[in-house]
């Protein structure tokens, strides 16, 4: 008996039982609150705000950026006395749910947030996929949500009533770089467009193609490739076509690979055009001087001359962010922080104190449609019609160019800090 059943087995059985017991004990209080079947309310004098984003899984990096942005808003607003409604300030408490980078898990999480946690409103996911899965559930319970990150244009064509987004869709922003280049005295004549096959990158590549055609630039190659593709053979093929511009829809890793492959193959177009990702500090850090002169699109940069009452100027925001997270915020982080300000403004306008009733949520949603909020991130104004229904159309897309590792605004004409450098110097003479 003893020989067959060592004591470690008893220990393990004990350990497993303890684990199960501890789990039951820890969460008991929370699940005990599951009672009502609708988004009803509970008595409290603070706003309970749901945050649903990718805290694990493939998109955890981006998910953390959104979390930092939302956290910074909550902390700042609480330090300044909370959201002012009437003559009293109400604190904000964030409740998190991890969507595990998976639409189905996101749908579960948001249902729990609404029915068990009874949140007043929701700050939305990092990815477009989760946003799409969550949107019908928000419509069912009539709880408003603003995502400070999702950029896929297809979210907005469905016209979900309670889903908003504070970043303009990728097809609104990606048209700007080639448009700016086409207005130069020596505009590019040909462009090759590469895109990675994910929702965001593909939309960017398609927008590059459309804007090139619109502005009289010939598209000599258009290719959408699976994620993880080796770019070397593609760049080699493009080199033969010798386009003036190579435009790439992707994320930071793919952008870095394209630049590296081009350098090693001796391919030097007059400009590289990219989108989100080149503002990620890793891009300049890893590529050094090779990263310079790359064009990109953004909706916000840290040096913009914008301000609001909560964060102060854009530079103050950058400082607060840097002090807390030791990193420079990109436009996703800024948009997430500004997202909270939209809700604050709408709540103040309708004078809704926590907890919100169903009717007040309805009013909140209507007010979000009507108001325009000017923040350190720029104006937030949601479209109420058309293909970008409930997306922020108040912001103008900026064209940026990396110069000495810093993002410089080079377009459009009214916003630019410097003239764009085009054609750009070759890799070996920088």
């Amino acid at each position: 008996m003893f020989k067959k059943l060592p004591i470690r087995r008893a220990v393990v059985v004990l350990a497993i039982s303890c684990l199960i017991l501890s789990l039951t004990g820890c969460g008991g209080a929370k699940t005990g609150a599951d009672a009502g079947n609708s988004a009803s309310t509970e008595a409290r004098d603070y706003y309970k705000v749901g945050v649903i984003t990718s805290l694990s899984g493939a998109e955890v990096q981006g998910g953390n950026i959104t979390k930092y942005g939302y956290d910074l808003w909550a902390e700042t607003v609480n330090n300044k006395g909370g959201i002012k409604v009437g003559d009293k300030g109400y604190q904000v408490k964030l409740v998190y749910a991890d969507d595990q980078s998976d639409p189905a898990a996101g749908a579960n999480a948001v249902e729990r947030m609404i029915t068990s946690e009874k949140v007043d409103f929701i700050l939305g996911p990092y990815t477009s996929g989760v946003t799409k899965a969550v949107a019908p559930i928000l419509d069912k319970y009539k709880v408003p949500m603003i995502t400070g990150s999702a950029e896929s244009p297809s979210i907005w064509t469905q016209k979900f009533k309670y889903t908003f987004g504070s970043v303009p869709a990728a097809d609104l922003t990606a048209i700007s770089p080639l448009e700016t280049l086409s207005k130069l005295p020596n505009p590019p004549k040909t462009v090759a467009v590469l895109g990675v096959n994910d929702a965001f990158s593909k939309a960017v590549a398609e927008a590059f193609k459309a804007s090139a055609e619109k502005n009289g630039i010939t598209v000599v190659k258009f290719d959408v490739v699976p994620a993880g593709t080796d770019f070397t053979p593609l760049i080699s093929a493009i080199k033969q076509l010798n386009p003036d511009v190579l435009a790439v829809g992707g994320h930071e890793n793919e952008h870095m690979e394209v630049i590296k492959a081009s350098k090693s193959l001796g391919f030097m177009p007059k400009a590289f055009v990219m989108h989100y990702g080149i503002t990620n500090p890793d891009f300049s850090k890893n590529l050094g001087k090779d990263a310079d002169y790359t064009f990109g699109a953004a909706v916000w940069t840290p040096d913009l001359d914008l301000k609001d009452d909560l964060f102060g100027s854009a530079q103050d925001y950058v400082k607060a962010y840097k002090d807390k997270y030791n990193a420079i915020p990109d436009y996703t982080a800024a948009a997430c922080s500004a997202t909270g300000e939209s809700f604050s403004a709408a709540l103040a306008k309708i004078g809704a104190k926590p907890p919100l009733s169903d009717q007040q949520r309805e009013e909140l949603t209507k007010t979000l449609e009507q108001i325009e909020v000017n923040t350190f991130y720029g104006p937030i104004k949601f479209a109420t019609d058309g293909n970008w229904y409930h997306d922020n159309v108040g912001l103008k897309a900026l064209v940026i160019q990396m110069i000495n590792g810093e993002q410089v605004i080079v377009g459009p004409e009214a916003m630019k800090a410097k003239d764009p450098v085009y054609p750009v110097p070759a890799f070996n003479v920088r």
Partner: protein
Amino acid sequence: MLKMKQLTQPRVIIFILSLIVLCTLPWVVSSFILRIATGIMMWIGLALSWNMLGGYMGYISFGHGASFGVGAYITGLLMMLLHLPFFVALIISGVITYIFAMIVGYPTLRLSGSYFAIGTWAFAEMMRQLVLVLDTTGGPEGLRLPPMLNDNFFYFVMFGLALLVFLTAYFFFENSDFGLKVKAVREEEVAARTLGLNTTWIKNQVFALSSMFAGIIGGAFAYWITYIHPDSVLGPLIADQMVIMVLLGGIGTLFGPVIGAIVLYVGNQYMLAAWGQSSAYLIILGLAICLVILFLPEGLLSLPRVFKSTTKGAFARLFSPPRKTRI
């Protein structure tokens, strides 16, 4: 025919009682709990369907998620493009995944062991890439289905499907000649063939049947979540979870997959709700699975037996006089 005597057996009574309890669930619990219950039913069905192949027949497949995804996409496309009603689309997607699995099974079932696992995994990855490049499936944008937000409806659909798979496993695999033949393939395929069994046909049938169930459940999932994406229905995680659930509960048994699915799904959702602020819960979950696989290789189903003998041992040790050290 069932006789009265059979109907009054305790286990039959327990089974019928639990069915009644499960049928009344939507009117008792909150919508979030009902959503979790729907998820549990779905995973019970999936784990049981994988168990037909991996448990009873001993062919470990990492490509079972492909059937789930194919079913999901076919249901979605039939509903969106041809505007077919849900149940019609579901039945058609079941038939298509069945035929599809017959075709896929033909070459892959000639492999065995880890080669079969790799082959099926590669096949699933191929399906994912195919759906990503096709325009009709929406490519990387995914596919949206008409939103239908009746929680009770989906609970009963998933419950019905799980019950269907359970009864199939019970009647076709646990209590039939066919089940014995399938187990013979698992134990010794060459010997089974020398006894005159058409093992190729048996293997193909099991593969197609289990894939069909996964496909139908995938179709129901698509309509439930209303939005599907190649990564969410054709990603490797779907198949991986089925494998882990079955191993956790007890492979090759009727109740093992059921228990594994409940424990893993509830554990995941529960810890997500309790500790959703950080992703530490994933580490705990992983650790718990490691412990079970290490010390309970026959799954959680063997826990009462091990517990019984272990406590007996511990008691014996406590109350027996100290022994001399044995080397």
